[in-house]
Structures are given as structure tokens and as C-alpha cells.
């Protein structure tokens, strides 16, 4: 297992993104882990468009089976999506279902010119045709479904990746 130093991975991700940032690039973080990461990237890359936040609770495909279990929060897109260059930011890329939900929600705000995906870590196990253009670390072997990998934020604001049994 490679080192899961979230702070280090975050810096690597920022450097991957840097050459592709234009004055019209906008970041949208997926709550909660992706938003923490997006806040960091937004500051590190000096992005001028205000940061967006998406909560995909109302667009999940397992609502029929699981209902509204996690407490939904606000989706806030403070820039015009119409014609924008949007980078969706998430912490961990797994099945691709969260990304699908975020794309659907984003398109209810307008028609972006292009959308890309940036993630801290790709843990494998995709169930949808989704790929991240920017990714700081791809695990060599997919994590088993019994393992849960998630980003956490300490009181001092530092980011950590934590592996727990699902």
C-alpha cells in the first residue's frame, strides 16, 4: 500500500492542475471531503471564479433503496454555469456514482462548456464509465468493498485519509 499522506497528495494534485487553469476555470467541490479539498486547491491555485459546492443527496441513484439518510446540505453554485469551464473536485473516486450525480446536478444550473474531474485518490471499483483527468494517486490494486477510504479534516484544518472497515 503506497503512503496516504493527504497533504502531500493535495500538493501533487494542485501541481497537476496548475498548467490547465485559465482565468475562466471554476472549481466545484462535492460535499464534504471534496469541498475541503476544493477549498485548498482554490486558494493554492489562486482561482478567481468563486468556489462552488455540490451536495449530491438529492441526485443519488440509491434514494429509492436507502432514502435520505445522510443529512443533506446546500448546493451553492455562485458563478454562471452556462458556458463555464468547470472542474469537479472529489476526495476519493470509487464507483463513479457520486460523479454521475454531481454531473446531473451541475447541468440543472446550465450548460457548461466543459467539465473535468479532479480527485485525490482513485481506489478502483468503477461501476460507471467515469475517469478523472487529474488524480494524485491511483491505487495499484482496487480496494475491497469491505474497506472504506475517506478524507477527514482535523481541527487545525489539516487533511488526512483514513481507512476504515465498511
Amino acid at each position, binding site marked *: 500500500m503506497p503512503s496516504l499522506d493527504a497533504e502531500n497528495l493535495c500538493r501533487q494534485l494542485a501541481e497537476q492542475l496548475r498548467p490547465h487553469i485559465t482565468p475562466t476555470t471554476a472549481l466545484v467541490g462535492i460535499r464534504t471531503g471534496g469541498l475541503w479539498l476544493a477549498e485548498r486547491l482554490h486558494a493554492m491555485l489562486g482561482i478567481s471564479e468563486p468556489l462552488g459546492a455540490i*451536495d449530491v*443527496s*438529492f*441526485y443519488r441513484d440509491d*434514494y*429509492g433503496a*436507502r*432514502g*435520505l439518510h445522510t*443529512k*443533506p*446540505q*446546500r*448546493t*451553492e453554485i455562485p458563478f454562471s454555469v452556462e458556458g463555464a469551464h468547470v472542474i469537479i473536485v472529489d476526495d476519493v473516486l470509487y464507483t463513479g456514482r457520486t460523479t454521475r450525480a454531481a454531473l*446531473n446536478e451541475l447541468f*440543472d*444550473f*446550465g450548460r457548461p462548456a466543459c467539465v473535468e474531474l479532479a480527485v485525490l485518490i482513485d481506489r478502483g471499483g468503477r461501476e460507471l464509465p467515469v475517469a478523472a483527468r487529474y488524480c494524485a494517486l491511483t491505487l495499484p490494486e482496487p480496494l475491497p468493498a469491505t474497506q472504506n477510504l475517506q478524507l477527514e479534516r482535523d481541527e487545525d484544518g489539516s487533511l488526512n485519509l483514513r481507512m476504515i472497515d465498511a
Partner: protein
Amino acid sequence: MLNPQLNKNGELQHLLTLDGLPRDIITAILDTAAPFTEVAEREVKKLPLLRGKSIFNLFFENSTRTRTTFEIAAKRLSADVVNLNVSTSSTSKGESLLDTVDNLCAMQADMFVVRHAASGAPFLIARHLRANGRNDIHVVNAGDGRHAHPTQGLLDMYTIRHYKQDFTKLTVAIVGDVLHSRVARSQICALTTLGVPEVRVIGPKTLLPTEIEKMGVRVFHDMNEGLRGVDVVMMLRLQNERMNGALLPTPQEFYKVWGLTAEKLANAKSDAIVMHPGPMNRGVEIDSAVADGAQAVILPQVTFGIAVRMAVMSMLAGQ
């Protein structure tokens, strides 16, 4: 006793009354409603949550605002909404309430939003569904007789929390025709459950139920005294259509003593908010200057009502 609104896991199965509804469920509904308010500001005011669900609005009693806001809420959740105009439906041909329900179940209904002049009608439907093993169908009470109007109570709580944040520091006055008001009953239950330390009811003796004190409220028969120092003034509509006999002299007399004017409102805290469930009788229970004034939050109540109903329907349908 088993709470008929909750399933065996303690989750909301139906929303029938706020009486006995646990505080954490009320809080969860208010929390869930908050992100729904943002949908109204979007280009596409629609979420895919209830796609393919059929919601039947069963209104056996007139209503414009409540039926419309339920309809908008359901449509913003992408549900298919069917409004039954009961005055021209089978009921007038003699069909019983439960036969109507069974027929709509045979049309694959997922949810009933029920308003009925008889207290307890939504309970009857919920019990009938349970007896038939139809735990996949949900009932929302949109007002039954003098009994309860839970989504109105919830949207009022949402409004109070929006403007005043902490319930545990508030003094709230409910003013007017409490006797005929299902809204007042739902408000009192919710305010008490959420920990409001002082709930007052203000009105003439003929329009307050006997032993209302047992609901945990302080009773006032004087407007100026009752409004002194309150944070929230919740006006009620004078329900002329429900009155039998001489409970009060004339609407003009009522206005003189119980109508909310700027002078009477001056007894409340300077930042007190004024609420009204609508429809308003201007010049009867409330003066136009107050209804349109800076302290009134009556139209925000309507807007919040859509988000609260979206929250209730999406919590129910997702069980």
C-alpha cells in the same frame, strides 16, 4: 402505544400530527428543508428524487395555498401529481372515503395528501393502509377538522428558526381564534417539543378551548398584556365558516379588541416577527399596516412552506 406515524424502525411512515412526534424527527425535517430552499433560486427548479412516484392530493375541503404549495413541492421533486376535485368526484355519488382510497391504491398511488373537514380522517386512511399491509403508501395530513395541520406547524417552526435561531430563549404568542384552529394545536405541540419556554395564547374566552392550559400554555385575555415582551406573534385566522352560534359580536368588534395593530404590536420586542398562516382577514384579525409592515414574515412563510413540504415528502417516500 405505537405511534401510528412511525414504522417499526422509528422512522416517519406518515405525517399525521405533531402531537407526540419526537423532537429529533421534527429537527430532522427542519434540517432537511434547509437545502430545499435553494432549489427555488435555480434555473431548473426540479430535483429527480420522486421521479415515477404518484402523489394524490385528496382535498375534501377547500384550500388554495396549501394544495398549491403541496402541488409545487411534489412537482419540484419530479413526482406526478393528481389533484382530485372532490366536489365533482365519486364522493358526491356516495362512495366512501376508504373505497376512494382503495381505488386510488389500485392506480398505484405512492402518497396521499389529505385534507378533510372531519378530525381524524387521515388517521383512518393510514390505519386502513396498515391493515391492508400497504406500508409502501404514505399519508400526509394537510389539515383535518379542528385537529391538526402538521406541515403548517412545521413551516412555522422553520420560519421561527430562520429568524430567531434558538427556540429555547423565546416567548411566543398565538393570538385569536384558537378554538377552531388546527394550526394553533400543531403550533403549540411543535413549540413545546422544541423547548420554547413560554408559549402564550391570547384571545376571548369564547374562542379558547377549555383547559387549554393543560397543553402547557399561558392564557391571556388582554392583548397588550399578552404581547408584552414576546419574540414571535403568531396570528390566527378568524374562522367564520366554522362558527355555530354567537361566539363573538361582529368582526368589527373583534378587530377593535383582538386585531393586531401597530399600537398593540409595540408591546412586543422591537425585533419581534409577525406570522399568519393565511388567508388573512385584513381589518379583522390583523391591520393592513402590520400585515405589510417590516416585522411581517407572512410571505416568507409561504415560500418556506414549499421547502418544508418537499422535505416531508422526500423523507416519507424514501423509507
